[in-house]
């Protein structure tokens, strides 16, 4: 008996990846890991788009996924620049060090 993944499998996978990213952003402390978690969230969205687009035999979702990749690349460039900027000041990138602005 051959087994084929269906739309539901892809949606469950992407929801799981998205949740891992979201939980990771909340509990991790290193800024680089935070950005990786955000990337995880964005890529799970890509997977959702592609799964729906395949399911419907349409191209819209594929196009959207390409745009998301381009925007995510731009975001990553800015993200790394900001991390370096913060590192120069604090000699570390843990969000626990971000104490200059409080209350």
């Amino acid at each position: 008996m051959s087994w084929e993944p269906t739309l539901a499998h892809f949606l469950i996978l992407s929801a799981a990846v998205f949740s891992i990213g979201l939980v990771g952003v909340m509990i991790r402390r290193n800024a680089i890991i935070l950005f990786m978690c955000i990337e995880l969230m964005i890529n799970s969205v890509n997977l959702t788009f592609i799964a729906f687009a395949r399911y419907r035999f349409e191209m819209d979702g594929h196009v959207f996924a390409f745009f998301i990749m381009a925007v995510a690349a731009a975001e990553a460039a800015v993200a790394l620049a900001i991390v370096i900027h913060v590192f120069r000041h604090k000699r570390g990138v843990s969000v626990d060090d971000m104490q200059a602005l409080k209350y």
Partner: protein
Amino acid sequence: MNLLSTITTLALLTPPEGAEFVAIVPGAIVTLVAIAFIIVDVFHRQGTPRDYLAYFSVVGLAVAAGSCWYLWDSGLERAAFFGMLYFDQFTLFFSALACVTAALAIMCSPPILQAHRMDRGEYYLLILFSVVGMIFMAASADLLTLFISLELMSIPIYVVAGFLRKDVRSAEASMKYFILGSISAALMLYGIALIYGATGTTNLEYIANNLALYLDGSGHEAYGLVMLGMVLIMSGFIFKIAGVPFHIWAPDVYTGSPTPAVGFMATAFKAIAFAALIRVFVIAFPSEVLRGGFFGLGWIDIAYFVAFASMVLGNLVAVVQNNVKRMLAYSSIAHAGYLMVGFVAANSHPAFYLHNDAILFYLVTYAFAVVGAFGVLGYFSRQGQNVETFQDLGNLGLKHPFMGLCMGVFMFSAAGFPPTAGFLGKFYIFRSGVDVYAQTAELAILVLVVVGVLTSVVGAFYYLKVLVYMYMKPEKRVFEPIRHKGTRLAVAICAVMTLYIGLFPARTIDISRDAVMDMRGVSAEVAETIERGEAELERIRGSEED
């Protein structure tokens, strides 16, 4: 052969005389100014101040705002570029607002950057690109353009927030803003993906059509997907307007960023997010099932919660702040709450759609008051001796009468005292709430208005505290003002506009109403409301002439 057929297809699809290209004129002007800016900046002589670059971008933004005024009556009936961009008075209103706030903020900026030894052209360039994103976000007719322009508007501002490189707080503000902004963008994106999955399209009008087929028919198969997607998209907007529960970034970012840029962030972002919020939810999710309406649990009910929580939390926490910029940040959360009251009232039923003009009017009044207030704070800022706490404001009003007077106007406007514009803004917002209560007898909306009025009394306390310190307390530290003509001019323009709109509001109200009435692609019920409103207006104008 294949190429030939492609070209003929494209030629057939292109409208005659390139009529659609008018839709990108304001955005294209700002883009061209930004590109010209890069070229001019390359030839800048090192070591000389860059003030003229600031004025160059101000002139460019003024031209773009002028083009909005010039094109006011040449809107397009249908969404341009294959259903990607609307070009109507709603778009033009918000494009002009974004250009004007950006121009005023840029006029205040050069001395701040010079004081922090960061006199770089990139600052103005990033703001210009952010304005391009704003213009297209207000125009977007498709969730794809919405997402791209949202990112185009946000990413440059993450950099601007961290622009004062030698200041550790600026770096921290930028980091916090970036992380939280990206999370909210990812949430919104997931919402868009789910909506796409449920309806098979990202075009706002097609979403509405497909939802009407699903939800009014027997099968509710995609209902859960649509609900979840809608909530996620809403949360993205709530982040951008700094509404509770996604407000936590605002105080830190406002405190750390360059002061004039904060004025731009606080006003233009809020305005454009409200433009897209109104556009998306009125056009794409008009169905009664999704709307809910006061605890039927739909998008109005989320907005209801946000309005309530933002007003209460923003105002109460602002009272205990000792840093002026943090106080203004919490008060901007409160303003998001007042605006949300207008949104709830105007969109709880399609028959009240025209009340959205109160939101547009409020955004104009709010923009001038807040950009001006941050301009005044920037006027007393130098490296190592910024105006930070209330004590620092001591006696500044008497020593610098002009700035003190303008700050008084802005604070009275933000607190909602007549005869300033802020009073009328609040009045129209709350009046639309009371009007909806009078017609529906829904107690929930009245509760919201009462909470709004009570919390604005609390708001008056902390706004007047600024003036008390400026005029009645002794000075603790001596602040040398920067004596910059551009700042003084921008602050004066803001003060004059605040008073002008407060005393002669008719024209601004007319423009807001026209903008709301001219929104394209709305559902049949909303279109009917607009038609009724137009007939009413015709009747009033007719009777005035007689």
